[in-house]
Each structure stands twice: as structure tokens, then as C-alpha cells.
């Protein structure tokens, strides 16, 4: 039998933060997404425009400009297509496992928007911009994270559905028509990918800038609440705050 005093005596306790299914699907998703984006950009480079042949396209300012080759994957159009059409199943099935798990296991409650989330988001922005001194109180995630992790599955689903619309524009013509036809479906597929890229890049930057401890919790699952961003009052690059000038330490 443990007492409250014994609990307090533990130096720094570790609690399980992410279920192993969440951790595995997170890293599988990271790899699948990288391959899908790289091979997708290689496919895009075979015709780096959205216009129907002989016509112009209203809504993309870089028509005709290929993506730098170092951002692409697959080597050539055929190789990239083979990878894209294989990895799409990993992305899709992995996404289903994740969504099925968060639904059945209740984790969706940490992510679903609630009254006050908008205000909390504004408070987080104020904190990051030094407009408020203390980290807003939060649950498992701060309001910015929560919104991002809530939106990501929808973007993922939209990427898959728009991708199917490009893949089968004749056999599934009704789906392609929902996106405004083949050229527009291709455009939406690209734009959804861009949104995923922006959110993912911000996500990775924030992991290193605000909460590198989350790398541990997303890998082994272990997490020490004493190192949470809230406990550390951590803004981006908090570890870059100026260090003290070295003077002899005085003891009072």
C-alpha cells in the first residue's frame, strides 16, 4: 500500500501518454505521408500545371514550374506512380486503424472541439507572442495542437478521396464531378497536400522548438508531466532564452 507521501517522494514519475496503437500508427503515417508527398510531387512534375491542354488555368500562379527534384521520390514518373498506388493503401488502412482506435478507446474526447477552444487558441497565440506571461492551462494538448490534430484526419480523408477521383475519373465519374472535374480534382488533391505539408512542418518544428519530450512519449510512450510545456512555461525555442552571465554564486 502506498501513501501520498511515498508518491511524492518519487523523484520524477513517468506516465503512459500515448497508447501503443497511436504511437505505431503515428510513425507509419509519417513514413507513408513522406512517400506519398514525394512520389506525388514526382508525378506532378510530369505535367506541372493544372490546365487542360491548350487552355489556361485560373488559380495556380506557378503553372509550368516543376518541383525541385530533391523534394521528389520515385526516380521517374512510372516509378513514382507505382510507389504512390502502393503506399496509398498503407496511408488509408493505417488511417482507418488510428481513427477506429481513437473512436473505440475514447481518445477522440481529447481532440473534439469544445466551447471555449477558440478563446483558448487566442490565449495560446498571445502566450507565444509574449502578450501573456504564463502558459494557458490545458488538458492533454494545448488549443493549437488540439485544433490541428482534429483537422488532420479530415485533410487526410480529403486527400484520399480526391486522389481516388483522379485515379478513376471515368469509372467513378460521379466522384470526379464532385470535385469539379478531372483538372479541378487534381488541383484540390494538390492543395490538400499543401495544407498537410504546412501543418506537418509546423508540427515538427514545434516538437523540436517547444516539446522535444514528446518525441519520447510518441516512441516509448513514457512522459513526465513535470516536463510538460505548461510546467516549463515553454514558448518556441524556450531553450534558447539568454543564459545568465557568470558571476560567483552567493549563498544567502
Amino acid at each position, binding site marked *: 500500500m502506498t501513501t501520498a507521501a511515498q508518491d511524492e517522494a518519487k523523484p520524477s514519475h513517468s506516465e503512459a501518454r500515448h497508447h501503443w496503437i497511436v504511437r505505431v500508427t503515428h510513425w507509419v503515417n509519417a513514413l507513408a505521408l*513522406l*512517400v506519398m508527398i*514525394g512520389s506525388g510531387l514526382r*508525378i*506532378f512534375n*510530369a*505535367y506541372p*500545371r493544372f490546365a*487542360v*491542354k*491548350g*487552355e489556361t488555368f485560373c488559380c495556380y500562379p506557378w503553372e509550368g514550374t516543376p518541383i525541385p*527534384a*530533391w*523534394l*521528389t*521520390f*520515385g*526516380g*521517374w*514518373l*512510372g*516509378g513514382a*506512380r*507505382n*510507389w504512390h*498506388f*502502393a503506399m496509398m*493503401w498503407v496511408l488509408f488502412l493505417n488511417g482507418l486503424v488510428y481513427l477506429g482506435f481513437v473512436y473505440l478507446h475514447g481518445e477522440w474526447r481529447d481532440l473534439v472541439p469544445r466551447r471555449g477552444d477558440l478563446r483558448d487558441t487566442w490565449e495560446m497565440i498571445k502566450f507565444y507572442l509574449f502578450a501573456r506571461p504564463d502558459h494557458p492551462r490545458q488538458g492533454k494538448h494545448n488549443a493549437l495542437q488540439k485544433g490541428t490534430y482534429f483537422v488532420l484526419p479530415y485533410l487526410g480523408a480529403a486527400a484520399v478521396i480526391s486522389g481516388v477521383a483522379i485515379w*478513376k*475519373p*471515368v*469509372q*467513378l*465519374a460521379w466522384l470526379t464531378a464532385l470535385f469539379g472535374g*478531372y*483538372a479541378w480534382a*487534381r488541383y484540390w488533391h494538390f492543395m490538400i497536400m499543401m495544407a498537410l505539408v504546412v501543418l506537418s512542418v509546423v508540427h515538427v518544428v514545434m516538437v*523540436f522548438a517547444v516539446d*522535444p519530450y514528446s*518525441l519520447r512519449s510518441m516512441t516509448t510512450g513514457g512522459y513526465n508531466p513535470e516536463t510538460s510545456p505548461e510546467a516549463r512555461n515553454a514558448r518556441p525555442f524556450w*531553450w534558447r532564452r539568454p543564459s545568465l552571465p557568470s558571476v560567483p554564486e552567493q549563498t544567502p
Partner: protein
Amino acid sequence: MKRRDFFGGLAAAAGTGLITACNSDGPRGAMGLVKAVGRGNERLERALFSFGHRDKVARGAKITGDAFPRYWISPEVPVWDESLRGVWHLDVVGAVRKPVRLTLDDLSKLPRFSQTVNHYCVEGWTARAQFSGVRMSDLAKLVEPTNDAGYVDFQSFDKSYHESWDIDSAIHPQTLIAYATDGRYLNTVQGAPARVHSPVKLGYKNTKYLTRIVFMPTRNGGYWSDLGYEWYGGV
């Protein structure tokens, strides 16, 4: 090791891995798996296929016309030279009960269908194409394929360019043996005297400069299919 160094090292390792992967074909060992999934995709695509699913172009949409890309694999545009090879003809042969040899005149006298459909290129562009010709399903009725004829190979006089199809896609009502566009016979850059055109297959499956249509019990690959694009290439 300081925690900061550890995270820096981790980021550097991940970055190096990514840069090595960039612009590469991907790990060789995974290719078998990638190809296997591709074969699974083909089964799904064949299950989705229906003769009733037609490609439609909005009424009044502009035909692509001269902006339609020109493409052949010979060094020069392939032209059928009558003085060397005699009058052009199309052989429809193979696993059939009644093989036929059709001249352009013969083709022109068969029931003619005209359609404006999308042309889907593997590269990602589309064009709106107007073609007139004979339905491949009508040619099949003419030659009476045997029961084991599950595939059709479309062969050309553009070097060794050919592509084989599953028979269902070949006899889809929008699959034409096209010999005319805009009320006139095809010109040489359009694949004259006759070419395959169908919206149910990607552009590279639509053989131009046709010489032979061979019904077969097994598939026969194709020019681009052998180079690495999907053999099925369905749209």
C-alpha cells in the same frame, strides 16, 4: 550527452535519411511488394469497370485541336508507304473464328460512331478529343473471338509500339478504332490511317498507326507497360 545534442543528432540522422531517399527510385527490396500491390490494384480496377460507365465532356466544351500533343516512338512521324508496303490494311486475327483483313475503305463502310471524350495522359494532362471510327465491339462481333480470348493486342507500324488490353476495356462502347476526326480522315501526326482511342485507358494504351489487332488468351505486355507503367492503365 546533452539532451540538446541528442535532439540535434536525431534531427540530423532523420534529415540524412530523407536526403538519401530524395529523388531516388526507392529501396530495391521493396519493389516486389510495390508490384504485388499494383496487381491487387488491377483486380480492384477490373471490379470497378463497367460498360455502362462512360466518359462525358460538357456540352459545348472546346475541342483541344492543334494543342493535342503529337507522339510517336520512331525518329520521324511514321507514314505508311504504299509503294513499299502496298495498300494499308488492318488485320484482325488471333483467337478468333473469322479473321478479317480490312482496308481503310472497308473500315469506312462499317457503322461509324463519333464521340467527343477526354484523353487522359499518364503524365496528368487531359485533352478533349473528337474522333470517328468503328466500335471495337463491332469488330469483335465481326471476327467472333473464341471463348479463351481474354486479351487484345493492338500493334502498329510505329517501330514495335504495341499495347495489350483486357478484352472488357477493348469492347467498351467508347473504345473506337478511329480513322477520322472533325469529318476528315486522320493525318499522319494523329496516327493515320487508324488508331485506338478510348477514354477508359490512359493515353499510352491507345496505339496509333495500327496494323494488327490480335485476340489472345494471355496478355502480351506493351511498349510502355514493359518500361514500367501499369499494364492495366485503366481510367
